[in-house]
């Protein structure tokens, strides 16, 4: 780990906050995507029965 000097807290917190936000965005997007795929499969199945 590089010597961050007296601003270590600032740098780490900046990186931590940013990466956390990106991870949150990624996670939420992926979860929403998965749910949509599952529901679409169900809807297509129902449509096939009625078709």
């Amino acid at each position: 780990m590089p010597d961050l000097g007296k601003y270590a807290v600032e740098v780490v917190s900046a990186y931590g906050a940013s990466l956390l936000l990106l991870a949150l965005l990624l996670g939420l997007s992926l979860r929403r995507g998965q749910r949509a795929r599952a529901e679409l499969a169900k809807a297509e199945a129902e449509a096939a029965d009625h078709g």
Partner: protein
Amino acid sequence: MSIWSYANPVKFLALSIRVQPFLWTAALICLATGLIWGFFATPDDFRQGSTVKIIYLHVPAALMAINAWFMMLITSLIWLVRRHHVSALAAKAAAPVGLVMTLIALITGAIWGQPMWGTWWEWDPRLTSFLILFLFYLGYMALWEAIEDPDTAADLTSVLCLVGSVFAVLSRYAVQFWNQGLHQGTSIPVTTGARTVSDVFFVPLLICMIGFGLLFAALVLYRTGTEIRLRRIRALRARMERTL
């Protein structure tokens, strides 16, 4: 086969599934190398000390925050002129990503400035205009959620995006006028091109920017796919109800 053929949502979905693996891996590689290189292998700045390392997050995020809105402006125009659903849904998909990029830019900017300015938040023109951009993103996303009919929602949000862009630029100059500003010179002024950042910092910064750009593209592509799937579910359900 003009590019507009990809405006067909089903075809766009197929394309996005094929392209995404490459996009995600490229984004990951660029981000990893850029951030690790910048974080570990670059010297401290004699004045700012190690806080200069925050540049690798602040500048790319700020750049993407503005480009995201610009992309939404373009897609909104495409929706209004050519009524392609994919572009309206791409704008809707890009908004949250732009919002997060703005948030990152705000947080890293505030943290980075804190040692010099002595306060956690300084009403500096550039940071403040990002705060205003944040409000625009919030309003845009809220309007999408508030309207039931997807087509009307796409229309109204597109017009809001156009009008919002004009006012964002107006606010940018109003805020500049309102407070002379403490922000350091632009690292890579697009207009003058003269780099105020020495080479050793510049290369990792460039890689980070490309990384953030690729991440943005991958995320928006993925989220647009989700929006298309949700619209397809809605259309299938509506058609089934009609035939019952």
